[in-house]
């Protein structure tokens, strides 16, 4: 149990006691400092589900299984193994017996049941992944080390979702519940996990410091980090300069090549390069005129200067990705070539458009200058074929919430579709499947032929069939020019040269610190 970091204005009396009770921080030189591009307004693992704050879920908490390495693979974690019933509805997980929470109490099946019920009840974070599959009360604990999930329908992807059932200490959380809030107010400021690190200090305006949890069930290698700090540094340039100065030992690995070049030029930073699964594309609002006309969309896909953008702006650091499914993910259509930049072709397509043309709006992400640069490249070329494009920059929360509203969604939005779970459905299904309309399908694309394949792929247990279905559906979406797909990101992880042992996985974006150590 960690006291919250509150800053009383006048608490002189309590000061002495507090100072005595807390061990001093490790000396700054021994602490790993990560500059995070987003703020940690809550530490609750069940209410947020974004990459920006994944460090909380990975370092304080554990899931039943865990994603590691690249390409991502699932390894047993809190659970040792699982079995699935013949009808695909019953999933039974055997838990490890040696797992302890940070307060020393043992983790049992009861905690897993409480955690999944909490996710479903709060209905935030990863809940949308589980709610279609699990009813409240459908998870049971036959014994202290067995958990049984009874699904509503067979699911091919449930196995890839279990890492996101992060387990909290049910007794501790229950003690801190207030008016049936599932301990939300308390868990926002405190940690009740089994994870590799335990919370030492937290300030929502600054970040957190965590200490290694020596009793972690997975044990520790010969070298490890004793203390880690995740600090909020919103400005890209400050993160870059801070890395170069040696203030930080790690930061996000999806910066523009301009920034990577600066890192490479410095003698303090090493760049770990990895294939990733994060497709950069312009999402198109397929349900609004004139984008609901395939000819207009074809004009769009031929009006983006792919080579100019990739070679000049991104300095050839990434490779073209013709569809929404990352090239290195199974299910990506084989041998498919992406659309070519050809303004004459674009003009010809535009001539076939029936609906009157109008200025189109591109929503870009403030603070992610690459989206603005991509939009500027697009804007300049669209202008040449007679389409006026307006760029509206807004912070991600704003853009994201507008995207989810059919009327407010911009005409186009350039952004990255990240990996939440390593299955083609993460990209193709979520963005173009009708079942996700009003949810993840922000392209408002709907095609029964595509749906049929996506639906089948979601329940089929035959891997070969699933691959074929995804490839077919991806080709259909491609033929419909439902988006402007540009490239698959590489991960260029900037880390201090003093750091070794970073184990990158596209799901965790290199923020899982349990394997890292000072060289």
């Amino acid at each position, binding site marked *: 149990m960690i006291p919250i970091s509150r800053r009383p204005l006048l608490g002189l009396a309590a000061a002495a006691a507090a100072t005595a009770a807390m061990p001093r921080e490790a000396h700054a030189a021994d602490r790993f400092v990560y500059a995070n591009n987003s703020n940690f307004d809550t530490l609750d693992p069940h*209410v947020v589900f974004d990459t920006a704050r994944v460090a909380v879920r990975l370092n304080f908490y554990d899931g039943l299984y865990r994603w590691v390495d690249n390409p991502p693979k699932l390894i047993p974690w809190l659970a040792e193994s699982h079995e699935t019933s013949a009808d695909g509805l019953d999933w039974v997980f055997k838990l490890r017996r040696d797992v302890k929470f940070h307060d020393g109490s043992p983790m049992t099946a009861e905690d897993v049941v409480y955690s999944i019920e909490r996710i479903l009840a709060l209905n935030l974070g990863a809940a949308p992944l589980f709610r279609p599959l699990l009813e409240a009360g459908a998870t049971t604990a036959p014994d202290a080390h067995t958990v049984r999930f009874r699904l509503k329908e067979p699911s091919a992807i449930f196995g890839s979702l279990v890492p996101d059932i992060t387990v909290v200490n049910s007794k501790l959380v229950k003690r801190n519940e207030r008016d049936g*809030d599932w301990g939300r107010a308390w868990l926002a400021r405190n940690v009740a996990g089994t994870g590799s690190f335990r919370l030492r200090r937290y300030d929502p305006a600054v970040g957190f410091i965590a200490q290694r949890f020596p009793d972690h069930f997975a044990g520790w290698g010969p070298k490890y980090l004793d203390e880690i700090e995740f600090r909020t540094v919103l400005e890209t340039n400050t993160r870059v300069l801070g890395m170069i100065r040696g203030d930080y030992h790690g930061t996000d690995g999806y910066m523009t090549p301009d920034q990577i070049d600066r890192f490479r030029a410095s003698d303090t930073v090493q760049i770990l390069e990895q294939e990733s699964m994060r497709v950069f594309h312009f999402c198109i609002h397929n349900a609004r005129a004139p984008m609901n006309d395939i000819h207009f969309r074809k004009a769009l896909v031929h009006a983006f200067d792919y080579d100019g953008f990739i070679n000049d702006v991104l300095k050839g650091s990434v490779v073209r990705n013709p569809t929404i499914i990352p090239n290195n993910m199974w299910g990506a259509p084989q041998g498919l070539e992406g659309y070519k930049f050809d303004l004459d072709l674009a003009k010809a397509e535009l001539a076939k458009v029936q609906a009157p043309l109008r200025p189109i709006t591109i929503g870009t992400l403030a603070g992610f200058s690459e989206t603005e640069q991509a939009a500027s490249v697009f804007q300049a070329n669209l202008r040449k074929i007679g389409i006026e494009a307006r760029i509206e920059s807004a912070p991600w929360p704003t853009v994201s919430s507008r995207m989810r509203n059919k009327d407010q969604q911009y005409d186009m939005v350039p952004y990255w579709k990240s990996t939440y779970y390593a299955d083609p459905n993460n990209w193709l299904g979520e963005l173009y499947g009708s079942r996700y309309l009003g949810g993840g399908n922000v392209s408002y694309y709907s095609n029964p032929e595509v749906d049929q394949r996506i639906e089948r792929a979601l329940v089929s247990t035959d891997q070969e069939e699933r691959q074929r279905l995804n490839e077919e559906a991806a080709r259909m979406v491609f033929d419909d020019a439902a988006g402007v797909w540009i490239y698959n990101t590489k991960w260029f992880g900037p880390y201090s040269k003093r750091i070794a042992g970073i184990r990158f996985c596209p799901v965790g974006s290199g923020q899982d610190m349990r394997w890292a150590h000072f060289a």
Partner: protein
Amino acid sequence: MKRLELILSRLLWLVPTLIGLGVITFAISHVIPTDPVAILAGENATAEQIAALRTQLGFDRPLPVQLLAYFQDLLRGDMGVSLFSQQPIAEELATRLPATLELTFAAVLLASVLGIPLGVVSALRRNSAIDHALRIVTVSGLAIPSFWLAIQLQYLFAMQIGVAPLNGRIDGFGPEPVTGLMLLDSLLQWDWESFWGALRHIALPAITLALPAAATIARFTRAGVLEVVTSNYVLYERAMGLPGALVTWKYVLRNALISTVTQIGLIFGVLLSGAVVVEAVFDWPGLGAFAVISIIQSDHRAVMGFTLWAGAIFVIVNLIVDVLHTLIDPRSTR
């Protein structure tokens, strides 16, 4: 007593002013199309999920009902909780206030230490080369864009010379919070390393804020001293070195600094409601940063809480300034 009357009437007006401010802010924060519920629910949320959440949070009620509920809570001293962190707004504000307070104190102190002597020298050597040079300096000080200055200072002192840190309040979390003011806390705990660290961190943001403030203070001081000394030639002579100079200075400064003190008060009030740009450039974990993130995410109650805080500070500082005026200059009690 006209003065008392003024104070009382202004205090009475404080309530309707804050209510008006509350209504305006409420309206503003609710016309924003950004849907906080959608942000809260996350990127993968479904439409039904968002709808359910909206009902649960009471965001589907008519706006006037929500506004009334807000004021009812406010009357009980409850500013509500942040939608995202689930923490009471009062606590969220209190968490960030010390950072802003400390920066404000540092900037105002620095500005006064620089501005007042410069203004006095300028006045006493009126139309000399020094006066002209100082005039250029003060006019420039008011014309430099603070965000540009902040960036340049960062490169010069953090990257080139390397004497100051880039950003933040301290490395790590600093001394255990007592008052929350890091410089003070580290002194109280005899922690010189933290004190030095905090001082180095606060230097650049404080300088950025202090420069225009010092220019303002210098200009007002110059005008004030000029007014006093030119209106009384004997005084001028004495101040310039004749016997009894010290006593004279006390008199001159007390009367000359009236408007300077007023200005310092106003600057203090402005900075207390969050120096957004400077806090953003230096990642200063203060109120300004909180206000920006809250309004971007449409965290209604947080936005309302911040605005009411800023508004109250504004009204109170103005009231104090006006009262000071009546104390010093009876003519302004009209």
